[in-house]
């Protein structure tokens, strides 16, 4: 039998007239990573706030580790760790002191708390900055301390709200390795992100939120099939030929999207498609003034799913 650690059912969250979550439901298995994708305002943070007991749903229910997030909030809090978009640290004291106080608040005695702080400092490579005031730590370092802080109580479920926003590529890749390691050892991870690459690299399961609705859910492979691996943007010299090329490309079996007078975006699944596109334009005798291959973005997901972008105005 599958072991669902998070169960969300018919969840609605309203702030006055605004519906942040418009009735969503899903489950997350133990030890897996769920990526919640969406733009600002899509409902990601509202969802995480409800699951981490900081906000109450307007309608519907959610449970974490079999415990209702409203009725058993306190028990849920003993089992979760949360890392927000902004590092939740006490800046006046050192990372070590931050970790030690959190362990104390989670019931550790002074000795256990010191030991746990030292353990996490070693594990996250914080040794050189462990005893400086946290406000002197760089952004990337603060994120590491913050992640360590959310692991003090060995949570069963870890919530990460846009963990890699504002990180440089090296720190980001280090963070990804840490998250993957945590999941491999049995921690269930829910992370929100605006980056497809992040979801693709880490997640076992992806939910794409748009204006409070789930617009797409499934494994990352499903995202790709809806979308292609990459997007080729073709720019024509002559705007009167755009429509003709559009028809040829769709006739070739690739989803094409007209963007302005002379631009066409095509979702491709591999190099063969790219070569095919080049041959196609050549055979038509069309002059290109631009040909770029890019990784798909969240906008492309929305376009692929809805044709029109589901972006808050």
């Amino acid at each position, binding site marked *: 039998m599958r072991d669902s650690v998070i169960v969300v059912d018919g969840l609605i969250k309203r702030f006055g007239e605004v519906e942040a979550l418009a009735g969503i439901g899903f489950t997350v298995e133990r030890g897996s990573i769920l990526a919640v994708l969406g733009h600002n305002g899509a409902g990601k943070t509202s969802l995480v706030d409800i699951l981490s007991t900081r906000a109450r749903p307007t309608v519907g229910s959610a449970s974490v580790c079999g415990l209702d997030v409203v009725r058993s909030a306190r028990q849920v809090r003993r089992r979760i760790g949360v890392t927000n978009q902004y590092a*939740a640290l006490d800046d006046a004291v050192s990372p070590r002191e931050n970790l030690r106080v959190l362990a104390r608040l989670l019931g550790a005695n002074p000795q256990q708390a010191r030991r746990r702080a030292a353990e996490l400092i070693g594990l996250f490579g914080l040794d050189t900055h462990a005893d400086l005031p946290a406000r002197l730590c760089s952004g990337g370092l603060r994120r590491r301390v913050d992640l360590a802080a959310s692991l003090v*109580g060995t949570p069963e479920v870890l919530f990460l709200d846009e963990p890699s926003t504002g990180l440089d590529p090296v720190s980001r890749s280090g963070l990804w390795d840490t998250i993957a*390691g945590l999941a491999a050892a049995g921690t269930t991870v829910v992370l929100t992100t605006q980056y497809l690459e992040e979801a693709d690299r880490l997640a076992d399961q992806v939910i794409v939120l748009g204006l409070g609705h789930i617009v797409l859910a499934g494994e990352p492979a499903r995202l790709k099939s809806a979308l292609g691996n990459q997007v080729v943007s073709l720019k024509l010299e002559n705007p009167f030929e755009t429509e003709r090329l559009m028809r040829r490309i769709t006739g070739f079996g690739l989803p094409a999207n007209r963007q302005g007078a002379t631009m066409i975006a095509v979702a491709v699944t591999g190099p063969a498609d790219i070569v095919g596109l080049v041959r196609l334009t050549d055979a038509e005798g069309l002059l290109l003034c631009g040909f770029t291959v890019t990784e798909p973005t969240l906008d492309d997901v929305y376009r692929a799913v809805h044709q029109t972008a589901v972006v808050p105005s």
Partner: protein
Amino acid sequence: MTVFSTQTWPECGFGAQVRILAWRSLRAEFADRRLVFFGLLQPVVLLVLFSQVFQVVGALPGLSGYDGYVNFLVPATLITIALTTAMGSSAGLLAELYGGFTSRLRCMPVSLFAALTARTIADGVRLGAQLIVVVAVSYALLGFRPGGGVAGVAAAVALTVFFGWCLDWVFVALTTMVRKVEALQAVAFVVTFPLMFSSSAYMPIAAMPSWMRILSALNPVTYAVNATRALSSGVASGPAVLAAAGTAFAVAVVGGVCARRAIRR
């Protein structure tokens, strides 16, 4: 990886939470030398200014019993310091409530009311340190020699710390309800100054207009000042001290209930 060594820590009770968080506040505060220095200087400035500006008041009838205005003034200044310290802590509390650390507490099995209580206790300890410095300065520089001696002054300081802790709850409640620093400053001002000047702190009540005398009789600061004066002059009566402690505690209960309600929003 040791991250996953499951912890079997027991639950941390309310009292332990308060103790840990209060200790944390104090450590952070005393780690900042500027905070310590100006925190201790501020009440001394207040004391020196008041003792010089209001000196002439000592010549008024009704003050003859105190053997000099300074013996009338110092106990009142202790209470004023308690009030301004409580008022001053609200801006810091607001920053803390919206700062990172508190946002983490919100998704931990920790009571936010424990965090507020811890804050009032840390404020109380700081106030105690300030009061001791003020008493020492008034003894050394201003000729503060009240009739109650060391025991009387110590009792007055202890009562003032209790009063300050109680009044702190008013500002904690205001902070959790107002939640905006500019508005909070305005509200704190409107609360603090009438409390201070409609009391018996600086002028004998007999010298006030009659409508203010009514206000003064309703003001917990009046009872606190009367009691600290009586304690430091060595003429304290049980009822006066009880009246001071009782009115202050009533204020604390109201503040605490409001704060507890507001913090959950």
